[in-house]
């Protein structure tokens, strides 16, 4: 498709060349010193990066696309909660990059450590330097170590966040399995904004499912730095129904904000000085855009990345596009779904921009499914469009409060089907 279009354009330019001054016609085609169709470097192989690389290649295979991702198998954070619930294996969240390679994407397993925005190059930890015409960053999140006193990387080995999938996920799962019946699973939930707004509450649901069937005398305590959370009414109704008083949620206004973590003693201290002791301590700390965004100079004082809503090009540095959790894209949530949706808009914008064409009208969707019990799913869904240069919600809402069990079961099934679809759409893998 794109090849024939390229050919048509060349034919057309030739025709124009004959009809007018040949020199003038040649001026019309955008040219790149580094390659005929342009070079794109994509940093990050998650939902955003993998999708962007795929959709750039699908639109114009002549563009050289290099994807930088340290992991040979990328493990998604979405659906790891079902692993804690004992409903999935860890490996089921793993995705490779074979489809991207088959599309002609140059997949480099290395770590992007520097960006020279003047020379337009990306440097890798392995020593390579890659030139780009357009750079797309999908770096996800990093943690603000010590923003929560006592919680740094060393502390996270004892009190895991498990908010990036991998070793952290396994540590939390092992701790949960080793926890005695009658123990306390304590979650420290962050203030907004953070990756995956319903995630902490789905995790608690899945941990509760595991405890109910394996360690029924145990308790879950959520200490929350906010007073409201995503799909709150639906979660709380589901908790009441399935887990009774196993789960206790303490909001900000009831001294839920944790200000100090003592990982060695598995204890935390709240704003008003109450000490809570845990058997398993899951701290989801304050977050910011992944490090490479800061290195590239695309973050602002908030630590996140302001972007142009129409294209997801950085507001601060031209020819750098940023998608996913790292961006300021509210009202879109920081979700894998949003990253995938933004990546397709950015991919189209990059292809258009390299060809000297205007960008397409952007449109986005997001659906986040959460599982409260094995056959009991809930969702929040929305579409987004651009108005006056800003992303606005065009439609949306959460599952009805009065839905019957058939509806909840269907949403549980659709949650799994969604994961299969987005895994296929992003990495081309069967999940």
């Amino acid at each position: 498709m794109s090849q024939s279009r390229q050919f048509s354009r060349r034919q057309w330019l030739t025709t124009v060349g004959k009809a007018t001054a040949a020199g003038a016609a040649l001026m019309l085609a955008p040219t790149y010193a580094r390659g005929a169709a342009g070079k794109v470097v994509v940093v990050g192989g998650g939902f955003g990066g993998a999708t962007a690389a795929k959709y750039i290649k699908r639109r114009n295979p002549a563009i050289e696309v290099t994807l930088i991702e340290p992991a040979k198998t990328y493990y998604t954070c979405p659906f790891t909660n079902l692993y804690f619930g004992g409903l999935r294996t860890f490996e089921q969240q793993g995705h490779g990059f074979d489809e991207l390679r088959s599309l002609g994407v140059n997949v480099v397993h290395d770590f992007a450590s520097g960006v020279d925005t003047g020379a337009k190059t990306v440097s890798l930890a392995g020593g390579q330097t890659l030139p780009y015409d357009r750079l797309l960053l999908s770096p996800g999140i990093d943690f603000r170590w010590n923003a929560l006193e006592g919680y740094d990387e060393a502390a996270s080995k004892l009190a895991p966040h498990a908010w990036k999938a991998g070793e952290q996920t396994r540590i939390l799962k092992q701790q949960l399995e080793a926890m005695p019946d009658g123990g306390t699973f304590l979650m420290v939930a962050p203030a907004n904004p953070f990756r995956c707004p319903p995630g902490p509450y789905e995790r608690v649901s899945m941990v509760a499912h595991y405890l109910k069937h394996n360690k029924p005398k145990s308790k879950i305590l959520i200490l929350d730095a906010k007073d409201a959370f995503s799909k709150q009414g639906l979660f709380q109704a589901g908790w009441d129904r399935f887990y009774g008083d196993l789960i206790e949620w303490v909001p900000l206004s009831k001294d839920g904000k944790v200000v100090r973590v003592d990982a060695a003693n598995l204890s935390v201290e709240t704003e008003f000085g109450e000490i809570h002791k845990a058997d398993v301590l899951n701290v989801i700390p304050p977050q910011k855009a992944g490090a490479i965004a800061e290195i590239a100079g695309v973050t602002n004082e908030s630590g996140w990345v302001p972007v142009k809503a129409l294209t997801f090009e950085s507001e601060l540095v031209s020819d750098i596009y940023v998608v996913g959790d790292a961006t300021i894209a509210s009202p879109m949530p920081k979700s894998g779904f949003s990253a995938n949706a933004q990546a397709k808009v950015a991919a189209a914008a990059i292809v258009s921009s390299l060809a000297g064409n205007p960008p397409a009208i952007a449109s986005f969707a997001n659906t986040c499914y959460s599982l409260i019990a094995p056959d009991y799913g809930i969702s929040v869904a929305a579409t987004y469009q651009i108005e006056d240069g800003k992303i606005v919600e065009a439609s949306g809402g959460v599952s009805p409060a009065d839905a019957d069990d058939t509806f909840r079961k269907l949403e549980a099934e659709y949650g799994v089907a969604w994961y299969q679809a987005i895994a296929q759409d992003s990495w081309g893998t069967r999940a």
Partner: protein
Amino acid sequence: MRYLATTLLKNEKLMHIARTALGAAALLGALAAPGLAAADQPIFDAKVLAAACANCHGTDGRSPGSIPSIAGRPEAILKQQLQAFKSDTPPAGTTVMNRLAKGLSDQQIDALAQHFSQISRSSSAQEVAKQ
């Protein structure tokens, strides 16, 4: 550059060539260098609109799971279904599609119905068709 574009567009013969080869919109695109005002005006692209469906319905609308595939279904049915989701009385068993379709204009619904109806149901069928 802009003057040149205007001159070219005024030339009827060239316009004809442009229409047959690429279409008038693409001609404008090809002429607009990055940085010109014309390059900032977004254009409608059904593929960008449709890509938002793939997150759940699979790439090109071919679903790998229990969410229905939408590739290669008749245009009239897709249109009717989306309009039903958008209405205040969505079909029984609707879960998220009413919440999503409410945000679509009638023109977007038409474009999506046309787009997915023109994609073959399976990628292998597409390959066979090409041979």
